């Protein structure tokens, strides 16, 4: 029951977005803006045009079905609430990506989708495989995200604005800029990693570790389309240049062909679908690379048809897995009798996938052929497209015949039809695919036309029809279907040959990724062993020496040492002299102390002496803090001292001389630094500013405190957060069970070891 209630939220969103259809189809756009960081030209602004509306409808519409389906699919899983929360969180992030009008806002939402995807892939986090796949997806899309951020910032600087519609006007000057190529490469890196283009595709099959409703939603219908959306959105800004055509067509066509080929070698239903999704994403990227109005039309129609049929097929695969306990196509069979509704959903989806009229997939394929045929390299491009589609048809045939019609093997469970909540999704998506084909003119006028105009930014009217008459495209379509069926029939005999020609092993980016990851961990290990050796005294030594040498180097090279004035502006007062003497005596006693308590006590004297100096020179706040910290340190030590062993060994003479030299040079350098600062006091407006505004703006007479809690309150917030995290760290280190206590909580300790 709960799943139906929760699904009301995405359903309401779907209706909300649907209410925009008449206006957007009429060529209008809509904008909403909330100021975010106005000083940096960053707004939380949203923009609805044909392209973003189409995406938003797909996201919220399919999201509704996924929530209903997932509620049933994971009904027995205690983490079902996590599924709802993460899926809805992802949906908001994804809607943000497609509706964002500001580049930075778009990037933030983009990263949020990566993070929710990470959490959802690792949903079954008790399995190492799921954790690894989640990390892999996060690292690949995350590094692409970094590149994208760099690209977007450059784009914003070159174009003079972070506002996407404003950038549309600046396209010419951006494309002439010398930074155009870096921008393009960086943006493409972001798009290609997200949309699983070769050679970054390997995370997507791994992502199939996620629960199937998640795969259906994120890893076929929506998130992986974010990269495609980005290319479409930026087509008017970055598109149309030779570099764009070469790079985008190159990656897209390689991906669509190779992935379709690899898909046929898989035996796991979800992996077949995953590689076929990679291939479809390649097709979309390829079409956007071609970039002609016809190609863009093909991209839009194919995007819709793919989201409908692939989302549906994933749900079918999930139902099959749920009912039979296996996803192995060689084992499955005969499900058309036990699962008739699911079978109908599968027929509608695979029909669209294979491009059978009157389903929308047929129109998509026709338009794609029409687009490639008018290109200058028509023979090559059309050839690649036809070949890819043949392989896709073969996969579609396989997806119907193996699980539903062939004879079944030994199934772990005996299958029954799923409840309404699980067959509703595939059937509804299938019917939508059918309706979009049958009512092609209405589909074209209400959705496709506005989306195309959103991509090209050159408004044009579109006529879409199911039937184009007897022409070349139809002939190619028939050849494709026939070729696909033939490939399926001879697949059994082809497989040994295909396994020998395993492109996926030869060009295995997954192996490269693993090697890089292992290498990184090795370097981290080595440097940790080098630096984190566990001897407190050496830590102090390293810190002091490196600080002293860096500061000393800067002092010598960047400043004029002769300008330091040694004459004091005031003469030394008696009590200052006494204090200096006291500190010196304390240091002398401290370095010769034979007990820990004595050593700590003398350090306390030194610290309190320094605090007194602060007080003499007009920094009471600093002095008070110093007093309190000194007291705390001594008390803390007293509390802990009972547990420490007595000092047994004293440092040898050489070590003492070394330590003395290090300490002395550090002292000399710090003294020189302070003298330097005093001698060449920089004219600073800050002091005046704080002094002037502390009372009227900050309502306080204590400037130090007003700076801490008001003017620079953000810094303080960060500092106390760091303090809190540090305390957690200390707590974890001290309270964590040691080796003897491991039996108390073995798994938790292992997790800490991995950290």
């Amino acid at each position, binding site marked *: 029951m709960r799943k139906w209630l929760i699904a009301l939220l995405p359903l309401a969103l779907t209706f909300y977005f649907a209410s925009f259809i008449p206006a957007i189809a009429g060529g209008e756009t809509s904008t909403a803006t909330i100021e975010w960081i106005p000083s940096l030209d960053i707004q939380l602004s949203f923009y609805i045009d044909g392209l973003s509306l189409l995406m938003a409808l797909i996201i919220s519409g399919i999201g509704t079905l996924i929530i209903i389906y997932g509620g049933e699919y994971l009904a027995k899983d205690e983490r079902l609430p996590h599924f709802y929360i993460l899926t809805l969180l992802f949906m908001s992030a994804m809607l943000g990506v497609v509706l964002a009008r500001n580049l930075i806002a778009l990037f933030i939402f983009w990263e949020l989708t990566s993070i929710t995807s990470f959490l959802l892939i690792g949903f079954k986090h008790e399995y190492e495989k799921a954790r690894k796949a989640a990390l892999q997806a996060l690292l690949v899309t995350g590094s692409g995200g970094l590149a994208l951020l760099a690209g977007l910032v450059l784009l914003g600087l070159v174009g003079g604005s972070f506002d996407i519609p404003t950038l549309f006007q600046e396209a010419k000057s951006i494309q002439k800029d010398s930074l155009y190529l870096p921008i393009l490469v960086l943006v493409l890196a972001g798009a290609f990693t997200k949309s699983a283009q070769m050679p970054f595709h390997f995370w997507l099959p791994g992502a199939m570790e996620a629960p199937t409703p998640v795969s259906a939603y994120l890893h076929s219908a929506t998130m992986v389309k974010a990269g495609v959306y980005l290319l479409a959105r930026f087509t008017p800004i970055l598109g149309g240049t030779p570099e764009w055509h070469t790079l985008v067509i190159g990656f897209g066509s390689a991906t669509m062909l190779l992935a379709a080929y690899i898909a046929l070698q898989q035996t796991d239903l979800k992996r077949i679908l995953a590689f076929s999704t990679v291939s479809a994403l390649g097709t979309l990227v390829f079409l956007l690379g071609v970039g002609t109005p016809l190609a863009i039309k093909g991209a839009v129609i194919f995007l819709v048809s793919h989201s409908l049929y692939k989302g549906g097929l994933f749900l079918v695969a999930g139902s099959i897995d749920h009912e039979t306990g296996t996803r192995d196509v060689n084992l499955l069979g005969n499900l058309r009798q036990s699962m008739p509704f699911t079978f109908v959903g599968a027929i509608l989806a695979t029909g669209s996938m294979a491009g059978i009229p009157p389903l929308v997939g047929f129109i998509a394929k026709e338009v794609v052929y029409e687009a490639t045929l008018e290109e200058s390299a028509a023979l090559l491009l059309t050839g690649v497209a036809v070949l890819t589609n043949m392989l896709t048809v073969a996969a579609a045939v396989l997806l119907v015949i193996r699980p539903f019609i062939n004879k079944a093997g030994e199934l772990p469970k005996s299958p029954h039809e799923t409840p309404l909540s699980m067959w509703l999704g595939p059937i509804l998506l299938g019917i939508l695919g059918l309706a979009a084909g049958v009512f092609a003119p209405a589909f074209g006028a209400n959705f496709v036309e506005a989306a195309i105009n959103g991509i090209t930014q050159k408004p044009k009217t579109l006529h879409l029809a199911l039937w184009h008459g007897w022409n070349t495209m139809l002939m190619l379509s028939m050849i494709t279907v026939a070729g696909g069926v033939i490939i399926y029939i001879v697949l059994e005999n082809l497989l040994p040959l295909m396994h020998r020609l395993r492109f996926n092993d030869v060009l295995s980016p997954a192996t490269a990724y693993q090697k890089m990851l292992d290498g990184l961990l090795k370097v981290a290990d080595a440097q940790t062993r080098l630096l984190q050796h566990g001897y407190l005294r050496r830590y102090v030594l390293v810190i002091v020496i490196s600080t002293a040498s860096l500061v000393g180097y800067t002092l010598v090279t960047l400043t004029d040492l002769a300008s330091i004035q040694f004459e004091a502006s005031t003469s030394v007062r008696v009590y200052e002299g006494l204090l200096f003497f006291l500190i010196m005596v304390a240091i002398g006693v401290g370095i010769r102390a034979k007990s820990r308590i004595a050593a700590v006590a003398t350090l306390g004297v030194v610290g309190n002496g320094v605090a007194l100096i602060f007080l003499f020179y007009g920094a009471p706040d600093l002095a008070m803090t110093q007093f309190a910290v000194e007291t705390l340190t001594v008390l803390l030590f007293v509390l802990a001292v009972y547990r420490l062993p007595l000092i047994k060994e004293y440092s040898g003479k050489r070590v003492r001389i070394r330590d003395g030299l290090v300490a002395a040079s550090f002292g000399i350098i710090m003294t020189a630094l302070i003298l330097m600062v005093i001698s060449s006091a920089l004219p600073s407006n800050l002091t005046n500013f704080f002094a002037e505004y502390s009372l009227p703006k900050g309502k306080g007479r204590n400037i130090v405190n007003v700076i801490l809690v008001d003017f620079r309150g953000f810094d303080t917030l960060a500092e106390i957060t760091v303090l809190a995290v540090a*305390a957690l760290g200390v707590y974890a280190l001290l309270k964590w069970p040691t080796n003897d206590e491991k039996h108390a909580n073995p798994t938790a300790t292992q997790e800490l070891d991995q950290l």
Partner: protein
Amino acid sequence: MNNKAQSLILSTAIHYLVPLLLLFSVFLLMRGHNEPGGGFTGGLVAAVAFELYAISEGTPKVRQLLRIKPLELIAIGLAIAVGSGMIGLFVGDPFMTSLWSGELPLLGKIGTPVIFDVGVYLVVIGVVLTVMLALAEE
């Protein structure tokens, strides 16, 4: 864990010192905006009070006196600090814009920076006590 000091003088003195120090820490916190003091120093002084108590009476008594775990104190303090920044959001200002009330009897002006300082105060106490109790009970 019994690691309390066996000293009559200390334990007698501490019964008077701890409440005084705690009062003093609140005093420091409240005056901080106009005179030397503030949440950070105040928090440290309060932590000193609890540490003295721990030396004299042992850590279990400190936990009793505190009633809540120091880690929770950190969380509450952080929440207050962030919350004081959020107040501005509700009236349409950016995060952490300071807002001030008018003159109130006894308290004077109350503003979001003062609430923020209370958060700092609690975080500092929580952090020091977390470390202290963990070390002493180790």
